[in-house]
Structure formats: structure tokens, C-alpha cells
């Protein structure tokens, strides 16, 4: 069982840290190929299960479109209430049952570590589409793809991470993934939502220079990428403090005047108030196209795991 589990987990995508630099670059390469032609029949006859134990329409539609455009079929459920887990079935049993029908499983689960566990018990590849606050590797890969596409390289970029750096899993995974490519980071967050020490320790270990500031203002004029995240009300104990932060952490078009011409603004979406709509028409706003890139990246991921490319 041990060896079996190991072989299987190697063929799953649970965490961005499971992929080497070469594997990351190969996925991005493949995504670029799918972008030139996202409609082909390479998944013809394959059945992919999308098991969403908590709803995430955005991610589910992206995965399902990726599969359907490659000629594959979809089975699954979009929230736990309609699944057998609501009748108390263990994750182990659900995964085994679905593995009888599907060639691969895309899974989102509210519990952290659910995807790792599923990858150890499933006889088919598992693609983690988010396990609680832990990992969401397809998001990280589409972020990297967007950076590569807009900058022409992943090497030696200055990346500003803005907003909720404490709980935001996308920024944590981005730091891990970018660590292969000699980045310089600037962490811009209110004191309540500062980057946790373990990621600063990680950067020091990897000799990645970083600075920290607690005001947005014009702290990003040297940046190549401005990665915005949602500042959520429920993260604050003091609501007065939330109101203050919300106002100073809104990116406005006027703040982009002195930024570099190659700067692009990314956001994992959905946004709330952190990007003013007046930024949307600026050519530096890239967040909607970033979401579209998710389709090609997910086609590349599914194809890699099913070895159909």
C-alpha cells in the first residue's frame, strides 16, 4: 500500500511545492500551446470528476471548460449538500467510489490536507482545486503563466504583494513558486495582516531580498508586478481599523501614473474594494485576462496528469 500510495501521489497535483522548476516551466510551456488552440480532442473518451465539497463556481467552471474543450466529459457535484458526504460518508469512501468511474479527480474541500490524503488513497490522479486555507496550485500556476506572459520572463522581477498577506494562501504559494526565479519582493500590508514569519524565514534561506511596508501609496513605482489580494472584514477584530485599512488599501488609477510601463496588476478575483473600477480600463490592469489564462493552465495540468500531451 505504501509504494502504491507513493506512485499515485507522484501523479497528482496537491501543492505547488511538489513541482520542480523544470516541471513548472513545462506546464507553462504547455499552457502557451493550449492558448494557441484550446479546442482539440485529446481527452476524447476520458471522464473527469469535479468534486466540490464546498462551492467555488469560478474554479469549477474553469476546470470543466478546460476538460470539455479537450473533448472530455465531466461528472461530479458542486457542493457537499448534494454529495454522499452529507450522509456521513468518509472522504476515503467517496474517493474510492468516484475512482471507479473517473480517470482523474479535481477536488475542492474545506479541510486542509484533504487533497494530500485523497492522493494517497486514490488509484487515479487527484488535482487539488483548493484544500481549506492550505493550497490551490492551479491558481499559482496561472499566476506564474500571467507573469511570464506579460513580462516575457520569470527571472529577476520585482513583485509587490499587497493586502492580506497573513491569511492569503495565493501569495504564500506565489512566494514558494517564484523562489526558483530570483525575485525581489515587497510586502505591502496593514500590521494586522503582515506576512507571517515563516515566509520571511523562507526568503532569507533562499537569499531572496524583500522589504516590508504598511502603506500602499506610491510604494510600487519600481514594481514589475503588483499582486493585489482581498482584504476581508472578518479578519479584523477592530472594525474601525478595517474601515481605515479598506480606504488606504484601494488602488486607484491616479496612483499608477509613475509606475513602470511594463507593470501589470494581478488579482486572484473576486475583488471587493481593493481595486477601484477606474483602474479596469488602464492597460496595466491584467486581472480579467489572468482569470482567462486559468483555462489554458488547467488544460495543461489535466493533460500532464493524464499523459495526453
Amino acid at each position: 500500500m505504501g509504494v502504491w500510495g507513493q506512485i499515485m501521489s507522484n501523479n497528482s497535483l496537491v501543492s505547488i511545492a511538489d513541482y520542480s522548476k523544470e516541471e513548472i516551466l513545462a506546464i507553462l510551456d504547455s499552457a502557451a500551446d493550449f492558448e494557441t488552440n484550446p479546442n482539440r480532442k485529446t481527452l476524447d473518451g476520458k471522464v473527469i470528476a469535479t468534486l466540490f465539497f464546498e462551492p467555488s463556481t469560478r474554479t469549477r467552471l474553469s476546470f470543466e471548460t478546460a476538460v470539455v474543450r479537450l473533448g472530455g466529459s465531466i461528472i461530479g457535484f458542486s457542493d457537499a449538500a448534494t454529495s454522499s458526504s452529507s450522509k456521513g460518508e468518509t472522504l476515503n469512501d467517496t474517493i474510492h467510489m468516484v475512482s471507479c468511474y473517473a480517470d482523474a479527480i479535481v477536488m475542492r474541500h474545506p479541510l486542509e490536507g484533504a487533497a494530500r490524503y485523497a492522493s494517497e488513497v486514490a488509484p487515479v490522479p487527484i488535482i487539488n482545486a483548493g484544500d481549506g486555507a492550505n493550497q490551490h496550485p492551479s491558481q499559482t500556476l496561472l499566476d506564474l503563466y500571467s507573469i511570464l506572459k506579460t513580462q516575457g520572463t520569470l527571472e529577476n522581477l520585482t513583485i509587490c504583494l499587497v493586502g492580506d498577506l497573513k491569511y492569503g494562501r495565493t501569495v504564500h504559494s506565489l512566494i514558494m513558486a517564484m523562489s526558483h526565479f530570483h525575485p525581489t519582493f515587497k510586502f505591502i500590508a496593514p500590521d494586522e495582516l503582515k506576512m507571517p514569519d515563516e515566509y520571511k524565514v523562507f526568503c532569507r534561506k533562499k537569499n531572496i531580498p524583500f522589504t516590508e511596508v504598511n502603506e500602499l501609496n506610491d510604494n510600487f513605482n519600481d514594481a514589475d508586478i503588483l499582486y493585489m489580494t482581498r482584504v476581508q472584514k472578518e479578519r479584523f477584530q477592530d472594525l474601525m481599523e478595517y474601515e481605515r485599512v479598506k480606504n488606504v488599501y484601494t488602488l486607484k488609477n491616479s496612483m499608477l501614473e509613475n509606475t513602470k510601463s511594463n507593470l501589470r496588476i494581478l488579482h486572484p478575483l473576486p475583488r471587493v474594494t481593493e481595486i477601484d473600477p477606474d483602474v479596469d480600463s488602464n492597460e496595466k490592469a491584467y486581472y480579467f485576462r489572468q482569470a482567462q489564462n486559468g483555462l489554458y493552465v488547467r488544460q495543461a495540468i489535466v493533460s500532464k496528469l493524464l499523459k495526453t500531451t
Partner: protein
Amino acid sequence: MEKELKVAALRNGTVIDHIPADKLYKVVSILHLDNCEQQITIGNNLDSAKVGKKGIIKISDRAFAEDETNKIALIAPNAKINIIRDYVVVEKRPLSLPSEIREIIQCGNPNCITNNQPVATKFHVIMHDEEIMLKCHYCEREVIRDKVKIK
């Protein structure tokens, strides 16, 4: 009491000495000595120059695999393990933390799969700036060794 324990020499078996008094019962628990059939002598709150109050466990006719005794390193890194044969110490076994620890630790993250489904825990032992940390294999949260919750 202490004198008596020292006199009660072991013919064959294992002596675990210099366990901090407050960790004694945790050692008993992680080695599953509560289900052990062999003769056991357990002493606690004995005076010790090294650890203040110490505990000691003597188990007759029982040898432990290294990965079993290494679990002790998690909670009592300075404990001493002596293997006795014919009243003679034949091995003083040094304790070292294994690179992976299964089942005995409980993950501190209430949202971890191991706290919500029948999934055995597994932790990786890693070093961070001289500090020994345990990282949950599943939810990937890290905890320093002193704060670890033993089941």
C-alpha cells in the same frame, strides 16, 4: 523508595532513565506500556541532579526497536536508554528524532483532515533556524517541538 528501585536490578530488558517527571506518563503512553504484558517498574519524582525531579521506567524482557525509542526524543530528548542483558548494560542507546513521526502526534489545526476524518497523522521533522519543528504531512502547518500535542 529510590534505594529500593536502584536495588531492584533488571536481569534482561530496557531501562529508560532521566525522564523529566512531568513527561513520565507521556512516555508510558507513546510506548503503549499501559498494554504491556511484561513486568514493569515505574518510579517518578525521584531526585535528580540533572533534571530536578525525574522518572524512570524499567521493563523486563522487552527490547524496543529504534524507531520506537526515538519517539521518546520528541518529548524527553535527554532521557537515557539502557539495554540490559544478564544484569549488564550492553547498549546505551542515543536518542535521535526520526525524520517522520506517525500517529502519536495530534495536529493542532482544528481544520486539518486528520482531526475530522479517520486519517492517521504523520509529521515531518524539520529544522528552522536551530529550532526543531514538526510539519503536518497533510495540512502543512508547522509547530515547534515543545508545543507538540501528544495523543
